[in-house]
């Protein structure tokens, strides 16, 4: 089966082509991403932007068109769907030299966007979802698009947050209810969340970065603390977690330094995500 689907990019459409069964399976994750109309034809994109999807036995192969990124294979199911989302974000940012994507979680507070930069399995999604639960709308739970500016801003793409199941033991009942009410029953072992407009920023919403956070979760500690860290620590984290194949590495490093310069840098020390989210929402305020 061969077909195509065009999504809106910052400069031109992003085409998904090939076997779109994967795009359909992943659709709940990018349901809020606008489709590109005929005027946003992917054919007009220079260079051609999009992903070619194909099966490789039981795996899926994703071949990006828009950047010097190698094709990747993913196991079928959630892993491939999440890989598709990563590929879409990659194709989105490479269209605009002012954009990068950072492996991070972000939520909008009254002061601006808090961006928690961390590798996989650091609890980013739980923290971002907990902030949404605390009425600080989710920007993204995994790969945050950052606009170089000035001002340096985070841009929401309306992507569904994902949490691994079973949920951590330390989540309070009201947070569990919040997650349960938003969960799309789609993949075993994963809660993909369809949050409402009060709890998630819509596609395209931008707001300045209020702080860079380096999460340091320690179940043994008591209370929550924001400890100022040297900017170099955030530059190093950003350099490790930023995806920007359209930028030479030296430019990427300078970009990371500029981003880190744009907002205060903290290490977030906490034991439980729900507690940390409430504390951060009180500290930075909730959006009006």
């Amino acid at each position, binding site marked *: 089966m061969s077909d195509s689907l065009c999504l809106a990019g910052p400069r031109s459409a992003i085409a998904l082509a090939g076997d779109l069964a994967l795009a359909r399976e992943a659709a709940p994750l990018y349901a809020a991403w606008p489709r590109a109309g005929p005027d946003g034809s992917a054919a007009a994109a220079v260079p051609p932007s999009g992903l070619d999807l194909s099966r490789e036995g039981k795996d899926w192969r994703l071949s990006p068109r828009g950047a010097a990124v190698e094709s990747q294979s993913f196991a079928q199911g959630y892993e491939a769907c999440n890989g598709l989302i990563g590929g879409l974000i990659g194709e989105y940012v490479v269209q605009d030299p002012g954009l990068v994507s950072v492996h991070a979680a972000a939520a909008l507070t009254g002061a601006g966007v808090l961006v928690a930069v961390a590798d996989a399995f650091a609890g980013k999604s739980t923290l971002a979802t907990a902030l949404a639960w605390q009425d600080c709308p989710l920007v993204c739970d995994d790969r945050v698009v950052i606009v170089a500016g000035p001002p340096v801003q985070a841009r929401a793409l309306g992507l569904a947050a994902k949490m691994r199941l079973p949920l951590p033991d330390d989540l309070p009942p009201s947070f569990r209810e919040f997650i349960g009410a938003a969960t799309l029953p789609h993949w075993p072992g994963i809660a993909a969340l369809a949050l409402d407009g009060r709890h998630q920023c819509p596609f395209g919403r931008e707001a300045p970065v209020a702080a860079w956070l380096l999460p340091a979760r320690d179940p043994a500690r008591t209370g929550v603390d924001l400890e100022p860290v*040297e*900017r*170099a620590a955030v*530059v*190093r984290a950003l*350099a490790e977690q930023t995806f920007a194949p359209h930028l*030479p*590495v*030296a430019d990427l*490093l*300078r970009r990371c*330094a500029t981003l*880190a310069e744009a907002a205060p840098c903290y290490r977030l020390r906490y034991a439980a995500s729900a507690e940390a989210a409430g504390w951060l929402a009180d500290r930075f305020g909730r959006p009006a």
Partner: protein
Amino acid sequence: MSVWTRTPEVVETDVGDDLFLVHPDSEEIVHLDRLAGAVWRALDEPQDSAALLALFGQAFPDQPRERLEADIARCLAVLSDAGLIVAGGDGPPD
């Protein structure tokens, strides 16, 4: 004693007191702590280890010589392993 020389076309980015370097071929990003950054800066002019030790001995007169020697050796190893500096000919530079 070998003279240490910076690899050409390494890109520097200053972040406060820290320094980040990018190797022109490998494109590896290397984060230098303050001492390693100071060694890198000192190698703006090629120098051997003895000259570096003399320089840092003047800058940190309270530090034991053995400690400084070990620290400088560590920094040179970091920079050399990352291909950011190379050991050249014997003797002091011209």
